């Protein structure tokens, strides 16, 4: 029977992610009159259970910043300040707000819906310089979330034949459909804790996608999930791969080091292809300076999938280029070589929010690879220095089932948000979004287009 793809979410709360944005300070001169309790509709203020004459300390993480208690306090005894714990989360890219949003998505599995208009900056760097389009007059596309038409979020990984040249020697196209344009990566921050790896791989298994795993991190409990593992091995260590069950996996990634020879790569590919005919083979690149001939070599090596790595902030390892621009360049280069249709592009690094997935697809990727965001879903605070034995989120001690469900919740919320973006555009298949630059507005272009003629004559356009 036909079954519509659906992600089952359920509420999973964690005590370590209960960090409110604000802190309410009750001054000594509070009269304990209880007016704050009357005016708060979020149960922040309560009387002390042991002595009902007194007010207990405010439950800060429930506070929603409405100022009702503060402004209705007859004695001006309450004050609100920013919560320092909250401000300390993450860094300039993984902002406290981004982390907080992922936590909520991982907890509830729902699209974040709030009242009042947008509150952020007009624009920002990277992903925040892109707006996605919508269509005023479209066929109805609002899908599953509200029970109307279906929007497909499946994408195909692997090599598609550009045309058939010889029917007698017809190679079956080796592609694999994943149900969401998102793959997982177990390597963020170099953490090799099994307590994190297992739930990520199980979540990938349940959701019908792949999770990347370095061969050095493989352990026996992962055996039941081999079909959902993308085994990753560096080209210079390819001889070690025989120690692992690589012949049973569906997906192998070869990490291309900075210096390598094409014959070495061809040899490795030949070996992998001869003994595991069905596996998808991807090449992991951190340098996209494809003009230097490597591109042609990749073409000769018949790479089916390119996985472009950026760092956790989305910056490329070589040169200071944001992942959107790297992917746009890669996409263009492939189009120029007339091989875009044959190659799958994956983008890893800096995918930190639901909107980054459609945006990176618009830039030219087929699918996004999530890494640090999975850890954040588990409760990670993206500390400046990561110490597993002294982790404030107790990541090493987490119950794998809880983590798995939190990751599934986050992906459920992200997929639903992807559907929102697609439905607003009137697109019913995420495959059609790939490289659709026309369905996005880029800050620099639109600012110039709109304001150049205004400010040019005043000499004020920057």
């Amino acid at each position, binding site marked *: 029977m036909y079954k519509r793809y659906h992600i089952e979410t359920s509420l999973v709360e964690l005590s370590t992610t209960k960090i409110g944005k604000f802190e309410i300070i009750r001054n000594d001169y509070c009269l304990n009159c209880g007016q704050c309790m009357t*005016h708060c*509709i979020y149960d922040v203020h309560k009387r002390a259970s042991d002595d009902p004459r007194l007010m207990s300390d405010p439950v800060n993480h429930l506070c*929603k*910043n*409405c*100022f009702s208690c*503060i*402004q*209705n*306090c007859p004695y001006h005894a309450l*004050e*609100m*300040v*920013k919560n320092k714990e909250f401000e300390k989360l993450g860094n300039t890219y993984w902002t406290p707000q981004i982390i907080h*949003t992922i936590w909520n998505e991982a907890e509830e599995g729902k*699209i*974040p*819906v*709030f*009242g*009042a*208009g*947008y*509150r*952020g*900056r*007009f*624009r920002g760097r990277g992903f925040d310089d892109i*707006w*996605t*389009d*919508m*269509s*005023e*007059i*479209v*066929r*109805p596309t*609002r899908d599953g979330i509200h029970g*109307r038409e279906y929007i497909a979020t499946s994408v195909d990984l692997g090599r598609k034949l550009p045309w058939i040249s010889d029917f007698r020697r017809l190679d079956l196209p080796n592609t694999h459909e994943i149900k969401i344009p998102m793959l997982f990566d177990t390597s963020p921050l170099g953490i090799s804790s099994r307590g994190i790896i297992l739930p990520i791989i199980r979540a990938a298994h349940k959701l019908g996608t792949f999770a990347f795993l370095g061969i050095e991190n493989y352990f026996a409990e992962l055996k039941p999930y081999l079909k959902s593992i993308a085994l990753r091995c560096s080209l210079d260590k390819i001889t070690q791969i025989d120690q692992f069950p690589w012949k049973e996996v569906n997906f192998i990634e070869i990490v291309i080091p900075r210096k390598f020879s094409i014959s070495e790569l061809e040899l490795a590919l030949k070996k992998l292809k001869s003994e595991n005919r069905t596996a998808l083979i991807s090449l992991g690149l951190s340098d996209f300076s494809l003009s230097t001939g490597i591109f042609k070599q990749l073409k000769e090596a018949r790479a089916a999938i390119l996985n472009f790595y950026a760092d956790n902030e989305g910056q490329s390892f070589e040169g200071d280029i944001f992942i959107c621009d790297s992917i746009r360049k890669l996409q263009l280069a492939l189009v120029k070589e007339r091989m875009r249709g044959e190659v799958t592009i994956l983008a890893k690094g800096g995918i930190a929010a639901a*909107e980054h997935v459609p*945006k990176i697809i618009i830039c030219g990727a087929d699918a996004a690879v999530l890494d640090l965001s999975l850890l954040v879903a588990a409760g990670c605070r993206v500390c400046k220095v990561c110490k597993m034995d002294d982790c404030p989120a107790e990541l090493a001690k987490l119950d794998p089932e809880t983590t798995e469900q939190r990751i599934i919740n986050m992906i459920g919320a992200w997929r639903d948000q992807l559907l*929102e*973006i697609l439905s*607003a*555009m*009137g697109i019913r298949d995420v495959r059609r979004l790939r490289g659709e630059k*026309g369905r996005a*507005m880029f800050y620099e272009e*639109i*600012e110039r*287009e*709109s304001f150049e*003629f*205004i*400010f040019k*004559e*005043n*000499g*004020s356009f920057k």
Partner: protein
Amino acid sequence: MKSVEIKICNSRFHKNIGKYTVSLSDSCFHCGLCVELCPYCVFERKDGFNHVSTPNSAGCLGPECKEGPYYCTTKCPVDAIKIELDPQWKTLGDFRWTPDLLITTWQQAETGEIPSGNLEYKIGASGGGFDSFDFTVDGLTAISSEEIDNIISSDKISTSICLNRRAEGASIEIPVPWYGAGMSFGSISLPSMLARAHSAKAWKTFTSTGEGGYPDELIPYGNHVITQIATGLFGVSEETIKRTPIIEFKYAQGAKPGLGGHLLGDKNTPSVAEMREAVPWNSLFSPFPFHSVYSVEDHKKHIDWVKTINPDALISVKVSTPSDVDMVAVGSYYAGANIIHLDGGYGGTGAAPEIAKKNIAMPIEYAITKVHKFLVEEGVREEIVLLASGGIRTAFDIAKSIALGADGAIIGTSDLVALGCVRCGNCESGRGCPRGIATTDPELEKQIDYLWGAQRIINLYASWQKQLKLLLYKLGLKDIKELRGRTDFLRHIDEK
């Protein structure tokens, strides 16, 4: 405007929030000198009391006062007064609605006067769009206060706009270049709706019903209430269409373009559901788009349909801002619309997915320019009224929209801020707004007395009109209509 009466209308809270906090130390012996000194009523000694009351910090201008004759801190004989930056200040507002903007809007709603302190009341801190440019002249400096009074009170500078520029149809003029945006019964409370309608009537402008039906309580304000027909058709009937001078087709909303309205189940109380002819406590998601409109021809059919029911009404078409918004605008013109209402991506809402507010469709600043330019090129600009909404917070945002090419603006969130909104963003679920503005909870909505609220909005509008008149005077213009498209009056803020 002689019919508009400005009255002082204080906040409804015990404590107001300001930028500074003023405290009296223990050494204070309550001599009362500060009470005499401070013209901003920070200090008060209640009748029959020996002690000076806890200072009303919100009125304090802070160190700006230092040069003036009233500076309390140095005059206090025992140095008991301390003025500090309120740490609470930082918790208020956001990049678009900065703490300064919120507080100055509240001040304007209280007094109806242009804010006098050092708080920024013209511009936000979002770093782009309206916040990245200003007028080549400052609207206020270097005019004597007498002159200012003259300009404000005289009728020599006009701020009125006409809402129908076609040869046929009713001619409706509003004295200020803005009217109220659609906010439905369900997203906001009935007292909030009444406050908006009452102020719209006082100012002879309009407010819109939004998507949730037309409550009977609004009928006395009928000449100033726009009936909105949105994709869900909630509460729309022939009767409500006949009642109104302007009919607004809402194709999309800037905060959630391409998605249709959201009313989460918690707020769909029995009274809201009855008005919407829906089942109580069920979430209501309007469809997108109008299922009867899949082309501009269908759109024309739609307009013909309401024109058959109410031949005298003007037609407004509310659309959000996709990259082809210029085509949509021209299409609407040819279909017979009188007003094109562009709702930009950063606009207000009672409930919308965060991803949609931030990412889908372009900000209004770009759309105004694009559509205005295109309509001019098509040669139809003089026959259609172009109104902008979605992130227009202040009088200066309105003026900037007009300078970019709009005829006027449509205001939503600012009305609510006048009623005391802090933009905490919790209107979407639970009992709704804890401050009683955007709620359907029968207990919470009692916090707003609609006549109080109406006066607050009337005052805010009065202050805005004064600002516009002064700005026009400074620019050497006599009529707001002359400002339209005058981008030469704008400059990038970095270039100051």
